[in-house]
């Protein structure tokens, strides 16, 4: 690990240098495995937050109180430490600008990580493919990458971001103040005729709710790709 960045009080980005890294597509993940001195191992998948950049990959990890792996990655690991990982994994939940659009990205909490790789790749290539991101989080402090997302949206007509807070908003908040529901999706999603590609990532209940909401609005199920992170709060 070559650098860390605390995105929120519980979320940290780890910058890793991986010798001979073959490159990856935005949306892919790595499996990270930890091994205790007595041989006990635990392994979890983490989405890559950055587009391909030589040997450098960033993963963003939320520290879960009862987590097996995340408290070590986001809490014990320090710059200079090594970890075991395999990847890149997953050719299905990927998007990069040559695949066209328009695109709808819907993220619950740290589900924003693989979608951020897509957003960053789009920005890096100065793509004009229209992309809308809906990011849901518990509180304002939990909005990972908020500064960068606001900057990218301000600078680019083709990219917009909408936020929804589910557990309380600061004074003057102009975003949504409730869980993502069909009405909110109806406002933000592209018209069905636009034939948008949709990527949804977050806890399994979040992904289920968003997917069924979009399908109820008429979006074909085959146009929606999902990455579930398990039960809410699970690593």
């Amino acid at each position, binding site marked *: 690990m070559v650098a860390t960045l605390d995105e929120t009080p519980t979320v940290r980005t780890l910058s890793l240098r991986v010798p001979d890294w073959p490159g990856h597509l935005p949306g892919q993940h790595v499996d990270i495995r930890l091994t205790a001195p007595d041989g006990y191992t635990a392994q979890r*998948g983490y989405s890559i937050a950055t587009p391909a950049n030589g040997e450098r990959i960033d993963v963003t990890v939320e520290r879960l109180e009862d987590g097996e792996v995340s408290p070590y990655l986001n809490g014990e690991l320090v710059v200079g430490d090594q970890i075991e990982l395999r*990847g890149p994994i*997953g050719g299905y939940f990927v998007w990069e600008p040559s695949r066209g659009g328009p695109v709808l990205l819907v993220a619950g909490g740290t589900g924003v990580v693989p979608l951020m790789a897509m957003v960053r790749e789009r920005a890096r290539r100065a793509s004009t493919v229209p992309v809308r991101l809906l990011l849901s989080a518990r509180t304002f402090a939990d909005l990972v990458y908020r500064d960068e997302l606001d900057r990218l949206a301000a600078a680019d007509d083709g990219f917009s971001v909408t936020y929804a807070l589910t557990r309380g908003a600061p004074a003057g908040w102009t975003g949504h103040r409730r869980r993502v529901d069909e009405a909110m999706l109806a406002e933000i999603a592209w018209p069905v005729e636009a034939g948008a590609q949709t990527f949804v990532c977050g806890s399994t209940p979040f992904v289920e709710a968003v997917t069924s909401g979009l399908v109820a609005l008429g979006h074909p199920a085959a146009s929606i790709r999902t990455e579930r992170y398990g039960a809410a709060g699970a690593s």
Partner: protein
Amino acid sequence: MTSDPHYLDGNALGGLLGEVFAADLTTATATCAGCGSVAPVAVMHVYVDAPGAVGRCATCGIVHVRVVQSAERTWLDLRGIRALEMPRLPPPTSPPRP
């Protein structure tokens, strides 16, 4: 099928299957041996909180794939998939002719 809060997508098996088959199977399409539906492996409902991993058909729920791994060995049962289809890799490029 009941709705359960704890299953993942076939992406979650990507690393394990990739290790066994030296290929990304998540984009391969699987024909269900039970209901005949065809979908990418990535769409399977995957249960990893078990003595092994189990991937189930997203349409009918039957078991597509079971995997057990000890420290040294992998056991794999793919009988729930009647057919698996994936693109072939391009042949290695030959050196330019003189």
